[in-house]
């Protein structure tokens, strides 16, 4: 079903949906940016379509909805392990095709890697419906087309923003909400076909240990400051660390949480006793790059990076990941397109 509908009508539907769903979209958070008087665009709950930021890329990806920055795994009372209560509400996320493809990568790690499923992720994931925001222009640093992450069929509804809204509804459960709210029309979303930034991907079969020791990484030893912002804004970085706490007011009670971790950040590999790996920041850049465009593919058959370009947008040292990929490819040779 496809509809042309007014913003009022759409807001009416959102109101209806909010009884059953938490609705997340990229929103503008005023004046909390890195520089004075700058805003941050990140994911938050909305009740009206006007709140959705459609003309800017969100600085953070929607992964924080499925894989929260901090998530309680257990509550401890004395010595008892208690799992947190589930929030019954279902979830709608407004997001672009690259980010839907990003969630596919998170699914791969949390649900497919190893024999156990991560039930905390699964529990949230099962509740989610995607409202795909049509994206035909992209933004300055995007390279989703090169990463083959510019398209997806995996959405419950797709939306084109304008004075009026065009909506394709694929999910049966959503049909009755939107039925009659607008005029039936022909609409299927279009996808971006070309980005300004393009990367050539390396042939993973030609990535050898020589590349690991190549002098190209030295540049990043100088430039990277190991802040980990690239890890945290990435829609596919899925690493985390276990963290236990006890409450100040009652030391017998506490929580076990997981918190985001990043391979660029100090301590990521440190073991009790102090031994760690990749002390050098260039090695960390190599490790992340190889995960995004080499080893994840070797393990799972497709690249991890979706080319959203958020890492390039956020880096305080202006390191460009797309450039880094191109450098790797220049050294080892391009992958053959099938």
């Amino acid at each position, binding site marked *: 079903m496809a509809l042309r509908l007014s913003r009022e009508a759409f807001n009416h539907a959102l109101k209806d949906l909010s009884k059953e769903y938490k609705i997340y979209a990229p929103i503008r958070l005023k004046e909390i940016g890195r520089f004075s008087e700058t805003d941050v665009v990140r994911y938050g709950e909305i009740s009206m379509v006007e709140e959705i930021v459609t003309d800017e890329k969100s600085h953070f990806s929607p992964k924080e909805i499925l894989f929260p920055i901090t998530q309680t*795994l*257990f509550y*401890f009372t004395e*010595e*008892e*392990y208690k*799992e947190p209560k589930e929030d019954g509400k279902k979830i709608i996320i407004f997001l672009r095709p690259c980010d839907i493809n990003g969630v596919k990568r998170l699914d791969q*790690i*949390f649900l497919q*890697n*190893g*024999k*156990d*499923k*991560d*039930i*905390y992720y*699964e*529990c949230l994931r099962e509740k989610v419906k995607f409202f795909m925001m049509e994206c035909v222009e992209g933004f300055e640093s995007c390279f989703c087309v090169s990463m083959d992450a510019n398209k997806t069929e995996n959405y419950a509804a797709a939306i084109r923003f304008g004075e009026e809204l065009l909506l394709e509804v694929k999910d049966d459960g959503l049909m009755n909400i939107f039925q009659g709210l607008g005029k039936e029309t022909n609409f299927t979303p279009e996808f971006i076909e070309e980005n300004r930034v393009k990367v050539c991907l390396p042939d993973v079969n030609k990535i050898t*240990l020589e590349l*690991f020791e190549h002098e190209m990484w030295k540049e990043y030893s100088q430039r990277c400051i190991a802040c980990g912002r690239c890890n945290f804004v990435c829609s596919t970085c*899925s*690493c*985390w*660390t*276990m*963290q*236990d*706490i*006890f409450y100040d007011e009652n*030391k017998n*009670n*506490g929580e*076990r949480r*997981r918190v985001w*971790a990043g*391979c660029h950040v100090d301590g*990521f*590999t*440190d*073991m*009790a*006793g102090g*031994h*760690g*790996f*990749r002390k050098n920041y260039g*090695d960390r850049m190599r*490790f992340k790059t*190889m*995960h995004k465009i*080499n*080893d*994840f593919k*070797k*393990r799972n058959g497709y690249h991890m990076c979706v080319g959203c370009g958020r890492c390039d947008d956020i880096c305080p040292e202006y390191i460009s990941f797309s450039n880094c990929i191109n450098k790797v490819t220049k050294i080892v040779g391009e992958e053959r397109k099938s």
Partner: protein
Amino acid sequence: MKNPYMPKKYTIIDIQHQTDIDYTFRVACDIKPKNGQFVEVSIPKIGEAPISISDFGDGYIDMTIRRVGKVTNYLHGLKPGDAMYLRGPYGNGFSLEQYKNKHLVIAAGGTGLAPVKSIINYFHRNPEEIQKLDLLIGFKSPKDILFREEIEEWMKNKKFHVTVTVDKGDESWTGNVGLITQFVPKIDIPDEDNLEVIIVGPPLMMKFTGLEFLQRKIKEEQIWVSFERKMSCGIGKCGHCKIDETYVCLEGPVFHYTKAKQLID
């Protein structure tokens, strides 16, 4: 839904002080591990730590735990009868079948002895299943020696040839002094093709010990190592132990040398 992060509560039945900072905990439990596997030890409000299983038998597992961090500091304050929470076992472990009826060399540095101790004890109890077992065991100093009583038992085994060495001796030490690598050339190897080698210890010790065996014309296919890495989950989710496309918690910690040499952190 089964929560893979939920540990089970067990009871500590014995604690042996190996050194001032290494205690062996025996826990009554139904975990039936393979040699060389590990568990996540879980202390509510303190944290979790991956610990290798140093031995096991009917209804119990042993873990030899060095006091080096928050979780292990807490553990060292526990007494027999206290609870210990565990989840696992995790990892691939060693395959005993690989070593049966062969000449086996085990080179272990420091706490690296823990994950291979159950293999040594298996062949100690079943000597008819091994042709010969050479043990090279290295510690920093005499006071760091682990499993003294068991080592003495192993020395009595006719199939075993045990070499204990320390990096630095003291006034009363009359044994070997030097790195494990120095003793590799001295091993009597009647038939190179019939040999299997296991090396476990700190990264540099494993690297250089491996090179010594290669010098002796032992093939990479005959050498096995076990890795130690930071891990939060043990089940392939947290990402800390990943090296290239390999998750140490899933495909390791035991690796064939042919694979291990490709794993660059």
